[in-house]
């Protein structure tokens, strides 16, 4: 148990520290790397909870795809973050005050935490009996099938949105038209010209 507790505190501490670094580091590339670190620690926490499937998904999706995408964006766009931060100090006092108040209040509220009635919506199944992935699948495609399908629609909208907002048919851009290339007949591609000798073309 002590090992688990130690691991929990280690993962948590690193996760929080790296989250702070994400928003405070000057170099945006560093920020993204700290983000990846935070993700890894979160995955570690999942493993501790026995949710190894979620841990793997977190690593694959967030670290492997999302964070890398961020990195691309940050590097390609060359945003001047220093300039963006210029107003930061100006708003810091009031922002910090409001944030602090909210934090204190929430702490106060959570100190009154009592898990309502001891009921759990769906208690985690015993990992020795049923595989983690299997259990999730059982739940996702039954009890939460509605949410699952609807989430699919959300993703569809995101896809459509990305296309609508960014895809442009630029005029004057030469594109490869594969269908035309494939269906091209010899007659229209090559013209055989008989050149009488001595007259030139």
């Amino acid at each position, binding site marked *: 148990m002590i090992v688990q507790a130690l691991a929990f505190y280690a993962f948590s501490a690193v996760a929080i520290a790296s989250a702070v670094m994400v928003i405070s580091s000057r170099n945006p590339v560093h920020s993204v790397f700290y983000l990846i670190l935070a993700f890894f620690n979160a995955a570690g926490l999942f493993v501790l909870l026995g949710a190894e499937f979620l841990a793997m998904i977190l690593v694959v999706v967030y670290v492997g795809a999302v964070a890398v995408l961020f990195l691309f964006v940050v590097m390609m766009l060359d945003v001047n973050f220093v300039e963006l931060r210029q107003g930061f100090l100006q*708003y810091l006092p009031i*922002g910090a005050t*409001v*944030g602090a*108040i*909210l934090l204190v*209040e*929430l702490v*106060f*509220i959570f100190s009154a935490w009592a898990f309502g009635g001891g009921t759990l919506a769906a208690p985690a199944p015993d990992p020795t009996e049923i595989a983690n992935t299997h259990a999730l699948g059982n739940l996702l495609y039954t009890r939460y099938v509605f949410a699952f399908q609807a989430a699919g629609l959300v993703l569809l909208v995101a896809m459509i949105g990305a296309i609508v907002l960014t895809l442009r048919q630029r005029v004057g851009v030469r594109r490869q038209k594969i269908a035309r290339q494939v269906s091209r007949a010899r007659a229209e591609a090559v013209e055989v010209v008989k050149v009488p000798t001595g007259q030139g073309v």
Partner: protein
Amino acid sequence: MAVIVVFAPLIAAAIAGFFGRLIGDRGAQLVTCGAMILSAVLAVILFVDVAILGNDRPTLSLFTWIDAGDLVVDWALRLDTLSVVMMATVSVCSAAIHVYSVGYMSHDPSIPRFQSYLSFFTFFMLMLVTSDNFVQLFFGWEGVGLCSYLLIGFWYDRPSANAASIKAFIVNRVGDFGFALGIFAVYMMFGSLQFDAVFNEAPNAAKETLEFLGIEWDALTIACILLFIGAMGKSAQLPLHTWLPDAMEGPTPVSALIHAATMVTAGVFMVCRLSPIFEYAPDALAVVVLVGATTALFAATVGVTQTDIKRVIAYSTCSQLGYMFFAAGVSAYGAAMFHLMTHAFFKALLFLGSGSVIHAMSGEQDMRKMGGLWRLIPITYGLMWIGSLALAGIPIFAGYYSKDMILESAWAAHSGVGQYAFWLGIFAAFLTAFYSWRLLFLTFHGEPRADHETMHHVHESPKVMLIPLYVLAFGAVFAGMAGYHYFVGEGRAEFWRQSLLVLPENDAIEHAHHGLPFFVPLLPFVVAIAGIAVAYLCYMARPGLPAEIAGRFRGLYQFLLNKWYFDELYDRIFVRSAFRLGYGFWKGGDGAIIDGLGPDGLAAATVGAARRASRLQTGYIYHYAFAIVVGVVVFVTWYLLRSAG
């Protein structure tokens, strides 16, 4: 039938008023006159049926008007003798005057409006006389006041007409305020505003008291006096009489209809209608007598000195109303109503006759610029004679019967106020005869004092104006003879039945029929003849005499000429101080405080807030996000503090 009588004028008024441009002058005249004649014929039939033949008709409830808690008020037509007498009088006079107006107003540019107002007025007057509760009475009361205002100011391009109409309206406001308070008092005491309910309860309420300003007052007396204040305003009694002479700024048919025959008598009607209450408030009745008798004399004295032909008749009206009131005050309600009816005929006749004179004189109203007209307009001259004879109370003419009855009743009341009223009435009768013949002599006799041009144009009025005059003249001659038996004679009990209540010990008319000293019935006639004789002496035999007298009694003459300085007094006390007060309120109260803090200030504050609110909208995302976070913090804090506290 009663519904048609009341609502035909309203419909005609609506048609003429709203579609006047569509149907034209002629159409408006036809519609209103037709409706009025129909109404008059039906009203007379109703009168014969109810009053003469004695058929009781139940109160006609049209529909509920107000139903709020304990207060239930209906629109209803009460059809007892008192109502039908008034209905017949009002609608016949009104019909005659409608027709007369067709001729009199023929050159006016807005005939439909005039005819519409006249009909509208008649509707309100009929509502007033047929009401079966206080609220409907008040409705009609205010309605006729409104129409009076509109008609006095009919020629709204004349400043004097506007001033007169405003004066009439405001002076009436004072009376109406009393009237309204009286209604409140009645409601407070009886818990109802239905006449029947109130009348049934009145005997029980006689001894109730009301504490006001720490003194116990007799409640019924207070209520009756308040109601009587309303009557004083409407019927131009001292000291609320000042509007009536000025009201002569309106067209002459208006003066005849509203300010002689009908509206001004509403006060008398009201006192008669409420006789079941007044009978139990003897002190209030005494007040009525005092006011009535004083007004009768006062107005007669002023009438002697006036030079405007219409003003003379106006003061005469004022004076005659005084007679009616003191008749009602000595419980001779029948006599009051009798005089009301006969007066309606002969006074309308006089007004219309004077209108005919004015018409002939191309609008001249000053008697000093008339004279010698009798050859030129003989018919009008004859009709004016009839009217004057009736007014002065010469036997066989209508006024003789009614006025004598009033004076006899006053004597027979055997009370101090009754004696007061009698002697003042006798003196007023002398003055009445005097100024009536002064008017006749100045207008029709002597040398023509108008310029040649005007005299050249003098002409007899057209038929359409004369026929109504004949009708009214007929009434002025015969109404007294015909009505004596029913109104005040032996048949009066069957005639009035339940509509008037006279306690046996107050029955002045009964006393007047028995055992009066011989001089009492004779005196009015004698003083009338004397008045005529003096007038002949002054204006025919020795034309220089009036000026001589005026010169010798300069103070008295000025006093009378200036109408006892009532207008000046009111101007000093009320008008100017009201102006000063109003100006102060306007500049200080309304302008600075109410407008400043109210509409203007609020508007300015709103605009300022709007500017600030739109400045909040900076366009920066982080400002918006910050607003959200602040909102969250505020709400969370609120709940935390609440749960902690």
